[in-house]
């Protein structure tokens, strides 16, 4: 109940923007005493919110906590179902457990830290000591499995577009959906689904995004290949507003994708985010590396690879690496 009151107070302060909100008004809105309001203001301060209090005028929100705040996310996303953790093994694993327990979907799971962040096929995801985003969104879409073919590409371009707008960083997507700054990885997506032969039952979209971390301090094996938004933009980003806006945008985007009719073809949209287009790449596929020039995607989302002999290959799986660029 206390948590809810904190959320309500913060919501009032966020709605007021730069204008102060009087203690009386907060007390009236929440139907509590002014003394109770003081207590909750104090707790918000302890949670890292900067609140300026002026006699007669009231309270004004002047700063946000640097780390992910459940109170902030709840205040900003009143209609979303959220599970926010200080620390968790993996937000995808937690989302899967919640779905298995029968919790209503859609919902979002976010955490400050992950102790067992996962990538594709047993790879791990390093998310540092806070300041980054570990997020999973869970759905129960009633969709035929065939409809899922371009989901990965769709979420990749929507996210890249959202992040370009909000941070100004020129983010590209490496097929099928790695978020890249130049040749380094800013974010990884792991989508896991449960289905039987005719229908998708559960879907978890997981995102690890390096926001304010410093990759130079990260484990040596990823120091050179990872990037963060802070490093790319040369400034840090307010994690909480970014997280709230991103959750809102991705919940919308996924629902748009599941809707009937689905979003129109996005091949042209893909072009403006395609990191690989026209570049020499290697595609590791079942122990074998195919080399050639990337030439975009087809309607199904397959990677088009022009082999050295001139043959055009359509690839639906594989790990892509950019070949070293020849120095001009």
């Amino acid at each position: 109940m206390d948590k809810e009151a904190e959320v309500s107070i913060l919501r009032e302060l966020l709605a007021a923007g730069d204008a102060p909100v009087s203690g009386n008004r907060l007390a009236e809105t929440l139907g509590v005493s002014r003394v109770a309001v003081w207590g909750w203001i104090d707790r918000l301060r302890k949670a890292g919110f900067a609140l300026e209090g002026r006699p007669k005028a009231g309270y004004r929100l002047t700063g946000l906590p640097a780390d992910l705040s459940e109170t902030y996310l709840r205040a900003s996303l009143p209609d979303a179902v959220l599970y926010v953790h200080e620390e968790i093994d993996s937000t995808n694993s937690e989302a899967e457990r919640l779905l298995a327990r029968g919790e209503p979907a859609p919902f979002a799971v976010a955490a400050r830290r992950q102790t067992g962040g996962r990538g594709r096929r047993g790879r791990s995801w390093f998310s540092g000591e806070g300041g980054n985003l570990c997020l999973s969104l869970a759905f129960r879409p009633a969709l035929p499995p065939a409809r899922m073919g371009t989901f990965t590409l769709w979420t990749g371009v929507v996210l890249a577009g959202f992040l370009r707008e909000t941070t100004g960083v020129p983010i590209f997507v490496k097929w099928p959906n790695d978020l890249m700054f130049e040749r380094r990885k800013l974010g990884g997506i792991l989508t896991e689904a449960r289905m039987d032969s005719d229908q998708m039952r559960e879907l978890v979209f997981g995102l690890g995004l390096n926001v304010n971390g410093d990759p130079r301090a990260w484990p040596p094996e990823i120091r050179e290949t990872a990037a963060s938004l802070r490093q790319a933009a040369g400034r840090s980003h307010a994690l909480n507003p970014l997280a709230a806006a991103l959750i809102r945008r991705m919940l919308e985007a996924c629902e748009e994708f599941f809707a009937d009719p689905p979003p129109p073809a996005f091949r042209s949209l893909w072009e403006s985010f395609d990191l690989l287009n026209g570049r020499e790449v290697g595609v590791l596929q079942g122990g074998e590396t195919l080399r050639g020039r990337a030439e975009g995607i087809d309607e199904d989302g397959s990677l088009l690879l022009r082999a050295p002999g001139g043959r055009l290959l359509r690839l639906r799986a594989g790990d892509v690496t950019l070949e070293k660029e020849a120095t001009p």
Partner: protein
Amino acid sequence: MKRSDLTELEVEQEGLKLRICRGPGGQIITQLPQGTAVHPETATAAGNGPQPAPPSAPAPAETTKVEENVTFIKSPMVGTFYRTPAPEMPPFVEVGHKVTEKSPVCIIEAMKVMNEIQSEVAGTIVEILLENGQPVEYGQPLFKVKKG
């Protein structure tokens, strides 16, 4: 084919390619590549039982039920077949394992979406038809299951 435990047979001769596999419910499926001209007797000779020869153009499967109480878990999509949740983990199921309708049996990776496939049938796994990491086609049988 049933006697030999073969699940798939591919014959290529003089530019003609014929693929026969055991389909869902133990049926025999005879497949010819699209547009292949074929003499009817070639197809029946390679088949098993009294099914008529498939038509000469895109070959829809002609099927005959040959095994009672046996069914197949099929792939709902094109992708890569994985028997384990992650490389270092044990397989979801082995031959002899009992499964229920909700049991996860494998992962099919398609466009970086990891799809956990549920059995949809209760019974015992009698055969695993693919190796870990192999590509799969839509509708391809993955597991043979004895119902009950």
